[in-house]
């Protein structure tokens, strides 16, 4: 029996709407559940006090500090390196076997589970280079983890800039570098930022890499060579070892809020950049 197109159309629409609602529903449920469980235990002192008794008491200030420092180190290394590599790949090389191989490698690296980067960071930074369990080791390892993502998104952003911007600038006598900085980068910036923000998000969420390379000290880090834990690690340890459910939820709620704030900030920034350019 043939079903009439009008009915399949309605059916398809219904199924798609249902799928969207259930996907969103699950998301809202999870976030709502954590926030509801967490907010009750959040107070000003929770944000500003040291971790006491392995997390049963006190606040999470050292974990907040650890998160910020480690993310800064990771982005400080991965963003310039990644953006520079993507510029090289997209603007300075001819498309060929070599670039294809490099790109294939980057795509593979982007799919490697983070625990592998943890192990790599542990061997290279913690042991061989002797940085020990520290914010530096953690930041470097996180940088290695997010580098492929940043390179990939930046390269895509660069490639999506119309070719004739490059041709026109070159025809006016611009050097390759001027072409890149004046006629390509400004238009690729929103896309590049997306990659960097994805990287920040992944660094904040990451646990495996951080535990392997930065340890999980509860003390306030005094330098980049101290061990520290991030909020994600703190949450993981609290929940996994059953230390304090309330504080685990509270930490998770703060983690979620941080990610939300970063995304909102990023979107408004991108919006502003896009509006300025087109």
């Amino acid at each position, binding site marked *: 029996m043939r079903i009439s197109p009008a009915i399949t159309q309605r059916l398809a629409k219904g199924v798609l709407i249902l799928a969207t609602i259930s996907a969103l529903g699950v998301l809202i449920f999870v976030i709502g559940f954590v926030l509801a469980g967490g907010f009750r235990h959040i107070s000003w002192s929770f944000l500003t006090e040291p971790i006491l008794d392995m997390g049963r008491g006190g606040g999470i200030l050292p974990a907040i500090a650890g998160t910020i420092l480690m993310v800064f180190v990771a982005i400080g290394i991965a963003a310039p390196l990644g953006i520079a590599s993507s510029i090289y790949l997209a603007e300075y090389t001819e498309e060929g076997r070599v670039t294809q191989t490099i790109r294939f490698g980057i795509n593979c690296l982007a799919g490697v589970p983070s625990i592998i980067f943890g192990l790599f960071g542990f061997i290279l930074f913690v042991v061989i280079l002797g940085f020990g369990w520290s914010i530096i080791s953690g930041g470097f390892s996180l940088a290695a983890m997010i580098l492929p993502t940043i390179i990939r998104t930046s390269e895509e952003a660069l490639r999506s800039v119309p070719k004739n*911007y490059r041709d*026109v600038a070159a025809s006016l*006598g611009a050097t390759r570098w001027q072409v890149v900085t004046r006629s390509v980068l400004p238009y690729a910036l929103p896309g590049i930022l997306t990659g960097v923000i994805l990287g920040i998000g992944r660094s904040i969420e990451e646990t495996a890499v951080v535990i392997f390379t930065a340890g999980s000290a509860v003390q306030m880090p005094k330098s980049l060579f101290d061990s520290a834990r991030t909020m994600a690690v703190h949450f993981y340890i609290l929940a996994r070892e059953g230390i304090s459910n309330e504080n685990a939820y509270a930490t998770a709620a703060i983690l979620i809020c941080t990610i939300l704030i970063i995304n909102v900030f990023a979107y408004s920034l991108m919006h502003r950049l896009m509006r300025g*350019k087109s």
Partner: protein
Amino acid sequence: MTNALTAKKLDLYYGDFHALKNVNLAIAPKKITALIGPSGCGKSTLLRVFNRMNELIAGVKITGEVKIFGRTMNKINLLELRKSVGMVFQRPNPFPLTIYDNVIYGLRIHGISKKDILDETAFTSLTSVGLWNDLKDRLKENALKLSGEQQQRLCIARLIALKSDILLMDEPCSALDPIATARIEELMQDLKENYTIVIVTHNMQQAARVSEECGFMLLGELVEFGNTDRIFTAPSDKRTEDYITGRYG
């Protein structure tokens, strides 16, 4: 007077594809020269030889001798060459910046940042393409808001600001309506006082209207080159005659 552009035994290959075959020509200064011929015959390729834009394409090989005002092209600094030989593209292509920033884009690239020089140049360039009166109060608006014709004029102003000597125009009117086309052609007549113009066009009436000299290309060869009126009335090559009378292309 030295010729603005000369090419001797010019051959160009895209990889294995022989796109320009033994092209010899001399383009006189301060005149309009048209290049005509069927699609794919190498008009744009020849035009891009003169500002070395083909070199941005991978696998291009060029042999032969090209001179610009008597100087061997490859001995001229590439960036200086691009400054003195400007290109107007088929699609108007201002940057998504303000009108002002578009006009002085080239100056900034070449390191000029003094505000009075930039302002003065914006004024003279926009005046010489006939845009100043319409746009003088809108200089801070985005150039993409302009009409196609205005955008194409703006792109020409961008070259005038750089004090280019030669303007290469690759089908500059093909994205414009007939009225805008007529006005751009008028502008070209004004500009030829000071500039050497080489225009590629698919429109034979246009070539006949605007140019003093004309070259007919076919399959990478420059079949015939000479006075436009003569080419259109008494072509010496059978292939030119066939093309002009519409027998192919």
